[in-house]
């Protein structure tokens, strides 16, 4: 199967803080990879490096066959292939839902307003928010905003989706409506890389789970084996904290 994302010995520091310490990882087409680990282990930084929100210090990151660390990468191309959803939704507060969705397709992909709007309606309908097309983000609940944010990323018809703790800022009763959208998306065959604390989600849809600790991949494997039979000591202690 084709490799969508590959990280090779990636290093990243913030000042004197070593965040990524030689990460090696691979996401294949159609895979759902869930990244877990204690806070500050570099999970989010890793995602942000993949679409160029952070620069890495050493190593190599490939998105399909593009080396995004080569220094002469066209980010507009890469970012169309890689969609990203953030913890704090980051919808544009000054634009209504529809204009949030169609801005990039029109500006970047030069789609007509009609084309973009039609596609947005299909996706909105799929997440059950078609009736909110004219609302402003400030008028929506967190769960609704996050579902819109997912749709917004999908509008670019990306080949990989990155999810950065997308349910962490939500009230508990709103988490499932977002997870359900993600589960549907996984079932439709989307390649996904998901940083999350939702172990239930990981068990349900992940092809592979990666445990990060101190800026390296400490353990990885398919979910059944991973949860049933953890080997790494740090993972054992982490799991005992989050599973009970």
């Amino acid at each position, binding site marked *: 199967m084709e490799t969508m994302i590959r990280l090779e010995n990636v290093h990243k520091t913030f000042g004197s803080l070593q965040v990524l310490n030689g990460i090696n990882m691979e996401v294949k087409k159609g895979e759902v990879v869930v990244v877990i680990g204690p806070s500050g282990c570099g999970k989010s930084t890793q995602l942000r490096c993949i679409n160029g929100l952070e620069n890495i210090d050493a190593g190599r990151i490939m998105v399909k066959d593009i080396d995004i660390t080569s220094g002469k990468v066209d*980010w507009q191309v890469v*970012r169309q292939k890689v969609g990203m959803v953030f913890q704090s939704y*980051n919808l*544009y507060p000054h634009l209504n839902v529809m204009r949030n969705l169609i801005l990039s397709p029109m500006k970047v992909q030069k789609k007509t307003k009609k084309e973009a709007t039609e596609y947005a309606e299909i996706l909105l309908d799929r997440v059950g928010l078609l009736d909110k097309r004219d609302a402003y983000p400030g008028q929506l609940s967190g769960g609704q905003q996050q579902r819109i944010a997912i749709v917004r990323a999908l509008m670019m018809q990306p080949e990989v989706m990155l999810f950065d703790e997308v349910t962490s800022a939500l009230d508990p009763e709103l988490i499932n409506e977002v997870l359900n959208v993600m589960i549907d998306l996984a079932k439709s065959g989307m390649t996904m890389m998901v940083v999350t604390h939702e172990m239930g989600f990981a068990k349900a849809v992940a092809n592979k789970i990666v445990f990060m600790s101190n800026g390296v991949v400490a353990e990885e494997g398919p979910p059944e084996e991973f949860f049933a039979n953890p080997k790494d000591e740090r993972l054992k202690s982490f799991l005992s904290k989050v599973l009970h």
Partner: protein
Amino acid sequence: MGFDFNFIMEQIPYLMLGARNTLIISVIVLLLAVIVGIVGALAKTSGGRFLRLITGMYVEIARNTPELVQIYFVFFVFPSLGLKFNSFVSGVIAMTFFGGGYLVEVFRAGIEAVPKTQVEAAKSLALKNRQIIVNIVFPQALKICLPSLIGYLIFILKMSSLLATIGIVELTFVANDVIANNFHAFEMFSAVALLYLIMVWTISWLLGIVEKRFKYEL
């Protein structure tokens, strides 16, 4: 000395001319100052080192020297440097200079108040830097700046009174011109003060309404 209403009634056409000119000048200056402010703010937030330094120096000089002296400078000093403009243009240049200096800081603060995560989200959606500034950062910054812009239109309107000193026929000039020949200082200054207050209060009221509407959308 009583209040001579008839005298004021006679002066109404002249007063209205002054008030009209005060408004026209203020609006022109505000528009130009907004342009200067936006360009300066962009230079300060995303320009190179040199550009930032130059903009910074401009802002400090504009903000830390008296407006009156700046007006004199343009009107009385520029010609000796080979730059001669008539009263009106000189006044507009000087006021745009200090108005723009204030607005650079207003817009810079506005731009910096837009959350970084907005830029990241836009980047992740493959927008280019210029598109991000135009479509995402700027509209949001503008709304953040709006209350300050109200303040500065009023500031500019009030400052336009200084233009009387270089012979521009605005409201304060009208007052001086009339009392130099007719001496009804109390009546004239009361009338002029009232006109200024009506303009200032109307602007702050109107823009207050706009501000409320904007707030709702955010």
